[in-house]
């Protein structure tokens, strides 16, 4: 009986020792997963995301995410194996790569965001300066509405870019500023080019003006000089400027009249051929001029023969200096419109045969571009 108890106790102790030994071995042989590395990778990715790496370093951020996902997949795969046969080396490797890529993404994002912020600020400032220049130069030059609309569209887009900048949305801000740039630069360049081309006739304008004023002086008579760019009509007497009236022109005023219906006001040296009033004109009072003159006819024939205008084009006519002006825009079909009181003055002082010279401007392109 005693021997049997001793044997049982011995057996129990033996089994316990064996089991405890096995358990100790088991616990010590189970590999540890790289929890710390994975956690670090997760934090690095979250940090990169919070710094907007998704936007500024998309490729690196995607790579970091991809390595993290690979680490998780590897971890899951290993966890499916028998506990003693697991190997977390790949999980560790992917985690470290994810951390590295996420840190690179964050670093690059900080630099890129700073660059983008600075470049956006520069572009906003530059375009605001261009806008100011446009307003200074071209507001005084009545340009076609289309160009002004383009400029205004750019101005509004620039405001949207400024809002994006204030909100720290530099990517969308850059998209807006790029659109604004297209409109503003385009309208500025087109306006500048159009004006420069228009000024090719400047020497002719000077010559015509000089000759007209000299004629007024020589004949001790009145002469009219109309300037399109400042939008004025001067009345000279004996070579001296007596009156300056505000004037409005055809919708397509910049340039010489080419054909009927082009909405342009002709440029050249003309004379008053007829004075119209008391219902013979619908524009209060009118001074008909001899458009087309010989030079206009010659230029028209050349344009038709060179094919620059269709052969069935007509030169047009019935160009007048008339009343009903002061509407605040260029609206006529090609005539010069004055306010009615100014028209009354002009009508009273001039007679048939009075010289009428219509030009772009007496001030130089440099002066116009300087906003003088």
């Amino acid at each position, binding site marked *: 009986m005693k021997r049997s108890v001793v044997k049982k106790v011995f057996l129990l102790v033996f089994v316990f020792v064996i089991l405890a030994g096995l358990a100790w071995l088991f616990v010590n042989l*189970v590999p540890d997963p790289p929890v710390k590395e994975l956690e670090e990778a*997760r934090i690095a990715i979250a940090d990169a995301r919070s710094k907007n790496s998704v936007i500024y370093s998309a490729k690196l951020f995607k790579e970091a995410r991809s390595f993290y996902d690979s680490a998780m997949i590897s*971890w899951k795969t290993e966890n499916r194996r028998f506990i003693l046969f697991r190997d977390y080396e790949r999980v560790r490797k992917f985690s470290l790569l994810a951390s590295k890529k996420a840190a690179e993404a964050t670093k690059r994002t900080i630099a890129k965001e700073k660059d983008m912020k600075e470049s956006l600020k520069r572009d906003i400032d530059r375009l605001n300066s261009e806008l100011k220049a446009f307003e200074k130069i071209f*507001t005084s030059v009545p340009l076609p509405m289309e160009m002004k609309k383009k400029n205004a569209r750019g101005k*509004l887009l620039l405001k949207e870019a400024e809002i994006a900048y204030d909100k720290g949305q530099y990517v969308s801000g850059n998209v807006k500023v790029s659109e604004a740039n297209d409109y503003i630069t385009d309208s500025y360049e087109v306006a500048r080019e159009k004006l420069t081309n228009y000024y090719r006739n400047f020497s002719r304008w000077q010559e015509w003006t000089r000759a007209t004023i000299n004629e007024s002086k020589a004949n001790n008579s009145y002469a009219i000089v109309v300037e399109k760019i400042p939008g004025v009509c001067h009345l000279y007497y004996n070579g001296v400027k007596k009156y300056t009236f505000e004037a*409005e022109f055809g919708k397509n005023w910049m340039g010489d009249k080419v054909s009927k219906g082009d909405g342009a006001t002709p440029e050249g040296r003309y004379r008053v051929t007829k004075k119209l009033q008391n219902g013979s004109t619908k524009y209060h009072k009118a001074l008909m001029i001899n458009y087309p003159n010989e030079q206009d006819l010659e230029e028209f024939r050349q344009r038709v023969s060179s094919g620059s205008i269709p052969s069935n084009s007509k030169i047009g006519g019935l160009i007048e200096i008339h009343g009903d002006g002061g509407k605040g*825009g260029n609206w006529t079909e090609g005539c010069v419109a004055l306010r009615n009181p100014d028209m009354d003055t002009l009508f009273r002082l001039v007679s048939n045969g009075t010289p009428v010279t219509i030009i772009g401007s007496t001030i130089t392109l440099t002066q116009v571009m300087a906003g003088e």
Partner: protein
Amino acid sequence: MKNRFFLVIATVAAVALMTSCGKVPQAGIDAANAAIDSAKVVEADIYLPGDFTALNDSMTVIMQDIEAQKSKLFKSYKTASAKLEALKAQAGTVATSAVAKKAEVKAEAEAGLVSVKALLDEVKGLIAKAPRGKDAKAVLEQMKGEVDAAEATITEAQTLFDAGTNYMQVADKITATTKQLNDLKAELEEVMAKVKR
């Protein structure tokens, strides 16, 4: 002999119990993911981006916890299950808040559209009443161009609003246009005040 047999059975049962305690809370994972998806459906990622990102981050942390438990000899998913429950509830709250935020932004955009249209009409009225001197003529033409551009942007904003894609964009367009129109209004009022003096 009988005692020995029970001892072996007890040992095996104890080991089995220690190594296989707890099951992966798959239902909880699926429910939390579904709740996050529902939050995305109501555009929480647009209207509450910070909160939506936090939901996804929490889910990542929980998935890491679950995998860490799977790696252990003695598994327990109690904490993960509790976190999943909390995350599901949080996703629900975010979804509700996103719906409210969207409604708020929509109402703001709608009111903004009404006020910017009224401002547009006011500026148009001021332009019509503005004095037409020699210098004012060109300036007014420039202003008309700006009013046209503002009107085009308001139309764009209205189209975006009607489509209901992103009311935040609508709000930004309204803010820009309002600024532009307020500048024009101030300029016109200054000119008119000068004329009165």
